[in-house]
């Protein structure tokens, strides 16, 4: 394996790990704050699954590096500009409509991603994807059912779901943009081109939006930058909270 492809592999694994880490941190914030008890438990479970996959990816990313940073070093020791997650996952929780729309649009993407990455030429990626896809199926079924239930609910729930959809939609385009890392990863056989997931995602999402009696926002404005470390202002407070202990008390344990 050449040095260049190892760096690419690191960056590829890291970006998917970052998506999981940041989203799980957002979801963790909702524990004890969900609208009903069952949903509180559901969101905590989903957060834990996603964090588990994120940890596996960050551990693997660390092994690929010359410095061999640990999963904790990568999660808590990096600055904002070094995070390569999608902008979608860092958007604030907002109301429950916003949380669920974000979750659904991302679950639909991740479920497709894991189902493709099980065929990765990299054994570890394939193994993690094999594990992840068994869980993402449950996540998707859950968030999809909320989108339908609230979209096709009362006039008020429909209004708020539509509002959430309009506000999150501009962050979905970024999921399907191929950059240099993606192209190199796909060419080497260990990754997939994000653009190749777009048709299936659109089919899934359009069908659900129709069932939910919502309307699909237009694709005119797409916000990007997450993969290059250019984030929205909302990630700052998230990282500050997530990294506070590790940075205030380096090397602490209990």
């Amino acid at each position, binding site marked *: 394996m050449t040095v260049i492809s190892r760096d690419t592999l690191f960056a590829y694994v890291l970006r998917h790990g970052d998506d999981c880490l940041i989203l799980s941190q957002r979801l963790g914030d909702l524990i004890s704050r969900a609208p009903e008890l*069952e949903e509180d438990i559901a969101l905590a*479970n989903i957060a834990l699954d996603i964090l588990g996959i994120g940890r596996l990816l960050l551990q693997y990313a660390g092994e690929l590096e010359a410095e061999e940073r640990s999963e904790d070093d990568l999660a808590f020791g990096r600055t904002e500009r070094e995070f390569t997650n999608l902008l979608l996952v860092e958007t604030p929780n907002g109301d429950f409509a916003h949380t669920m729309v974000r979750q659904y649009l991302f679950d639909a993407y991740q479920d497709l991603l894991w189902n493709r990455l099980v065929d990765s030429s990299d054994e570890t990626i394939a193994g993690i994807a094999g594990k992840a896809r068994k*869980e993402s199926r449950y996540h998707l079924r859950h968030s999809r059912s909320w989108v339908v239930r609230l979209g096709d609910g009362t006039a008020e729930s429909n209004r708020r779901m539509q509002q959430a959809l309009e506000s999150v939609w501009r962050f979905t385009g970024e999921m399907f943009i191929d950059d240099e890392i993606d192209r190199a990863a796909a060419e080497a056989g260990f990754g997939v081109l994000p653009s190749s997931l777009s048709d299936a995602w659109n089919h899934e999402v359009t069908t659900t939006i129709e069932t939910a009696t919502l309307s699909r926002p237009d694709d005119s404005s797409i916000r990007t930058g997450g993969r290059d470390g250019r984030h929205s202002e909302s990630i700052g407070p998230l990282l500050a909270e997530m990294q506070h202990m590790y940075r205030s008390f380096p090397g602490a344990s209990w």
Partner: protein
Amino acid sequence: MVTTAWDVAAAVPDPEIPVLDIAEMGILRSVVVDETGHVIVTITPTYSGCPAMKAIETTIVDELKRAGFGDVDVRTQLAPAWTTDWMTDDARRKLEREGIAPPARSGSQDDILCPRCASPDTDLISPFGSTACKSLMVCSSCGEPFHHFKTL
């Protein structure tokens, strides 16, 4: 020696469902003892975020050391991914006795039976329960809620 080390590791309970041990759960994949006495235990995680995995790892090491095995390594193997099909029939019966409906065999279309009255007239309340592996259901015949071990 191999059987002994296996027996010790196999007896470690699943902290979230203590009536089951990790062999019955299908978590324990292999135990290898080499000629120097070095033990390598391979386990497969159930759910990726399952907080029990760390506890299981620690207990395996502690129990093997207590049984006289000095040098123990626990390795986690992701592929092939854990499936509820690896749970033994014995494990399924024990779950049922605990009031937890066991997972369906993959591909099976059978109804989930109420662990109390065996009625097939059951409904899902929430796909997510008190632990990652369980969903919450209710029986329409006897009216009691119960846990179902999710098919994975």
